[in-house]
């Protein structure tokens, strides 16, 4: 009985610690809603994404990195600079019923696209984006 109690407590503690670590950088969210009934919702703990990139073998990125590598320093510098503006509107385009809004809120880059037949909302923690850029730069072939 005592062993079971200890195990349960240890398990709960581990879950609490792991959960806290996984979510300490926030959550990356991609929500896509089509009015034909198709909905895509992806919520990923931000701390996990750079970690996943670190463990995935480089050969899986080679092709993408060839095209992306010239832009990785730009992405890194952009995210580093955007962190200085945690609450700011950068782009807003309103055209009839179409609306695009790119802004930062609570340290996340938010991209909201609203069209008559679909809405897309993307929220990326800037810390995560910077780490991804650094991780990919490390994997990228020298330009």
């Amino acid at each position, binding site marked *: 009985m005592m062993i079971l109690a200890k195990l349960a407590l240890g398990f709960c503690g581990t879950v609490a610690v792991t959960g806290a670590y996984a979510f300490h950088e926030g959550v990356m969210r991609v929500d896509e809603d089509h009015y034909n009934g198709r909905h895509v919702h992806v919520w990923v703990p931000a701390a996990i994404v750079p970690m996943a990139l670190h463990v995935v073998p480089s050969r899986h990125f080679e092709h993408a990195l060839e095209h992306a590598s010239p832009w990785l320093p730009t992405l890194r510098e952009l995210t580093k600079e955007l962190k200085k503006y945690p609450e700011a*509107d950068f782009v807003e385009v309103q055209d009839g019923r179409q609306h695009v809004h790119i802004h930062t809120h609570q340290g996340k880059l938010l991209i909201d696209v609203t069209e008559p037949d679909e809405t897309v909302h993307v929220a990326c923690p800037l810390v995560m984006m910077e780490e991804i850029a650094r991780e990919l730069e490390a994997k990228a072939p020298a330009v």
Partner: protein
Amino acid sequence: MNVPALRFTEKIALTLAASLLAAALTIAPVAAAQASPASGSGQTVSASSHDRWLHVRVTNPSDKEETVRVNVPLELAEKVLPTINKDRLHAGKVRFDDVDCHGVDLKALVDAVRTSKDGEFVTVQSKESDVRVAKQNGYLFVHVFEKNRPKHSQVEVKVPMKVVDALFSAGKDELDIVAALHALSAQGDTELVSVKDEQNTVRVWIDSKNVTE
């Protein structure tokens, strides 16, 4: 309560306390991160009071639902532009050749404007349009008024001479965009471009606010 029961309770309490402590230590950065918007916004306020923002606003007076608003911190643009190396843009400089300016030596032209006294350099008045290029109080003004349209259109450009100098401070066939942005960030609140025609109104200006009105 007997001794084994007390020891068991003690162990449970200890394990629980240890788990909570570990969780709290890990959560602390989360709390800090969550709190950072408040403190961050404080930083933003202080940062934005020093930072300069370039604003672009396009509106359609006849259709209130068509609007474009772009707000760019000049410091961000200064840092990010040099990382882009694509086509003619390299290290924050744009390369152009003689074909682009039809044989006109732009650098010599700018030097001539800089060293000349304040005054009007170009004044054209015709049935179709009025054009005026002038230098006054350290600013270069370009004013174009088109009359020959269903409705009038008006373009006004006001650029600080220091920005023009910085723009042409690189090589003979290069425009130093980063230097121009840096010079622009040292300027006070200024409206740089204003275009008004029958369809759209375009405004480009700099100030210290991170939102458009």
